[in-house]
């Protein structure tokens, strides 16, 4: 450490430092230490350049709070003096002197030089729920090629499973299906279902991608989705799409509006009777199909892998694994949906439920199961489900047991008020346990915290408002793409406030629930935002990258799931 050094301590988040003298003592002769306000401001930077030139500083350290977002701001400094300041992040709890001196010990010069590379005018979108679809449509509409990779046999994600959406009570199929169809037909979107990204290398502008395509055992282009194979298949198993509420065959079409509309054979349950092959007019069945690897290059990558539903078995006191009158919210959604296994008829033990208790925060706001965060959607979807059930069972009574009603989005509070007006009881208190009473009905133990009184509610149906969790294989995905994962196990953004769609890797963006729970509106707005981020370098045609922007290949396969649809938690 013998170089003449300039140390600048910024006020942001720190309120300045009184210890400039102390730091100066430890620096070589000719160094300076300055306490400055708002270094991100351009005039302050001009002063910095002046200092560097006048005092012949050989290196500069800027200590500030948000070092991770400010790097690009000092571009002007780099251009003028030939090197960039080293930014070190200082937090309130840090010993400022110690941290700065420690940073000086191991200082590597940062050259402003970046390589400019051409941008491949295409984007990889991983995951084809509503978020992946919308991003693909936006990018495709802007005129660029999209590879949309989906692990399941069809696109549409969780939204396809919903009946209606809050707070407007739009039919989910009515707004989701057109998006699916548009995605399936878009000339710029290449849809790869039953597929998983298994390797990514390269850098922004030019990522090399390997995709593993699992066999569908049906020729997607030949199959018309007529369903005659399904009708003739003798093997029956529970339908994943309907969360086990209804059956499916070993060769099946997950749901009527599935895109691509093609059957898929589930080899695990197939009896190999080859009846499907025999009955198919189009000769579309391919028992000999094998998995294949597809390789291509893209300019940007967008991760839209969504969420999984919390596994309610992890809260055994709620009896989800024990009682069939205890179901999770997505199961209720399938029961309500006209496209569901009961065609929208809600029957519990053969009768429409009259007394329904919703249990909020199952797997959310719960450090006990490792999920401290709020899932953002459960308050409103429970409120909505009261409305859905009421349409079919007009005399049903509803109680929603909650801690805080988080009706924060546009129109949410209004919807909450409306349902209160219509008689839904909001009981403040989190359900402690559920058991079966002598008459076979469920008993729900909960404190009515506003009455300071523990009560037992009787219910013929208990709905667990299960929270959203990161897909189980998020760590593997993050590993492959060199991304970070947050404490909440969702993918981490570059900065939670300022760069919510960017990742630590240049050229890789994310949107929707892959980044954390959010509702459809917020997801769709965010995904268009991420699409913009991915499109901008492409429309420029060039992007600047530094050595740190390379994605290093992680040599391990991340392929995890079979091609059949998997609802991990059901």
């Amino acid at each position, binding site marked *: 450490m013998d170089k003449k050094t300039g140390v600048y301590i910024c006020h942001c988040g720190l309120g300045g430092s009184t210890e400039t003298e102390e730091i100066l003592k430890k620096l070589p002769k000719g160094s300076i230490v300055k306490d400055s306000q708002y270094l991100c401001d351009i005039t302050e930077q001009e002063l910095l350049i002046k200092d560097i030139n006048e005092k012949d500083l050989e290196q500069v350290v800027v200590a500030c709070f948000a070092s991770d977002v400010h790097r690009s701001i000092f571009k002007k400094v780099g251009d003028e003096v030939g090197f960039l300041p080293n930014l070190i992040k200082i937090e309130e709890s840090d010993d400022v002197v110690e941290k700065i001196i420690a940073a000086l010990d191991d200082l590597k010069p940062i050259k402003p030089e970046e390589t400019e590379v051409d941008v491949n005018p295409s984007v990889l979108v991983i995951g084809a729920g509503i978020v992946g679809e919308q991003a693909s449509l936006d990018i495709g509409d802007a005129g660029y090629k999209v590879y949309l990779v989906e692990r399941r046999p069809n696109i549409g994600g969780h939204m396809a499973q919903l009946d209606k959406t809050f707070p407007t009570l739009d039919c989910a199929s009515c707004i989701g299906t057109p998006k699916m169809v548009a995605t399936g037909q878009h000339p710029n979107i290449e849809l790869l279902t039953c597929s998983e990204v298994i390797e990514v290398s390269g850098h922004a502008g030019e990522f090399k991608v390997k995709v593993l395509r699992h066999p569908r055992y049906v020729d997607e282009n030949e199959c018309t989705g007529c369903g005659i194979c399904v009708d003739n298949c003798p093997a029956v198993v529970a339908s994943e799409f309907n969360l086990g509420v209804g059956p499916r065959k070993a060769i099946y079409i997950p749901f009527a509006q599935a895109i691509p509309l093609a059957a898929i054979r589930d080899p695990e349950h197939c009896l190999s009777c080859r009846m499907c092959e025999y009955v198919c007019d189009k000769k579309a069945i391919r028992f000999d199909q094998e998995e294949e690897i597809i390789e291509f290059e893209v300019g940007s990558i967008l991760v839209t892998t969504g969420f999984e539903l919390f596994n309610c078995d992890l809260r055994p*006191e709620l009896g989800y694994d024990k009682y069939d009158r205890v179901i999770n919210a997505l199961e209720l959604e399938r029961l309500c949906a006209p496209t569901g296994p009961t065609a929208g008829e809600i029957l519990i033990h053969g009768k429409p439920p009259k007394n329904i208790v919703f249990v909020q*925060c199952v797997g959310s*706001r*719960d*450090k*006990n199961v490792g999920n401290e965060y709020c899932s953002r959607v459960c308050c409103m979807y429970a409120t909505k489900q009261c409305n859905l059930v009421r349409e079919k069972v007009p005399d049903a009574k509803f109680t929603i047991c909650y*801690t*805080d009603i988080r009706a924060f989005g546009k129109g949410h509070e209004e919807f909450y008020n409306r349902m209160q007006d219509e008689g839904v009881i909001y009981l*403040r*208190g*989190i*359900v*402690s*346990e559920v058991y079966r009473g002598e008459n076979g009905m469920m008993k729900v*133990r*909960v*404190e*009515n*915290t506003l009455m*300071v*009184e*523990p009560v037992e509610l009787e219910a013929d149906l208990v709905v667990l408002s299960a929270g959203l969790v990161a897909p189980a294989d998020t760590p593997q995905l993050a590993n492959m793409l060199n991304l970070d994962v947050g404490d909440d196990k969702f993918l981490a953004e570059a900065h939670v406030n300022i760069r919510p769609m960017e990742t630590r890797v240049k050229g890789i963006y994310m949107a929707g629930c892959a980044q954390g729970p959010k509702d459809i509106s917020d997801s769709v707005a965010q995904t268009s935002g991420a699409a913009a981020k991915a499109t901008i370098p492409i429309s420029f045609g060039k992007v600047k990258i530094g050595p740190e922007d390379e994605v290093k290949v992680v040599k391990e396969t991340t392929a995890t799931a079979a091609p059949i649809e998997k609802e991990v938690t059901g």
Partner: protein
Amino acid sequence: MEFVDEIIETGGPILGSEHMETLRVCMQCGKCTGGCPSGRLTAIRTRKMILSALLNMRDEVLSSDELWLCTTCYTCYERCPRNVKVTDITRTIRNIAGREGYLAKSHRMAASYVIKTGHGVPINDAVKESRKKLGLSEIPPTTHAYKDALKGIQTLAKKTKFDELIDFDWETMNLKE
């Protein structure tokens, strides 16, 4: 000092400060009270006790009879979504209540047996007979059989000032009146 801080400082040295600090983060969801086996049968309201402690209502909490209706079954502790160590907080609040003179006579009596005999539930003649019938030693190999060991317990009680806490009279070997 705030009551919350007092609770944390009292329990911290034995149970750990981090353990006790969880008291602060209660979000009042009521999961504790909702599942409390005692609350179904008695007047104890666990969440209210925690809230009262957080709101610095020291006297109300310490003097309440409900404080002593927890059977330490740990149901609340197990289920708390914020991992508040409710049962240990209850035990600690009772420690403070004890120092403030809220120990019931019956409790002091049970404690005095330990100083007197080493056992909270000492042996009696009938059980001695039963033990013989079962082929066990008439007197169990505990402080009942080892008088020096009993002295050890008594020394220990003096050292921790447990005798003072329960108002034990060494002269009469009984509780002070």
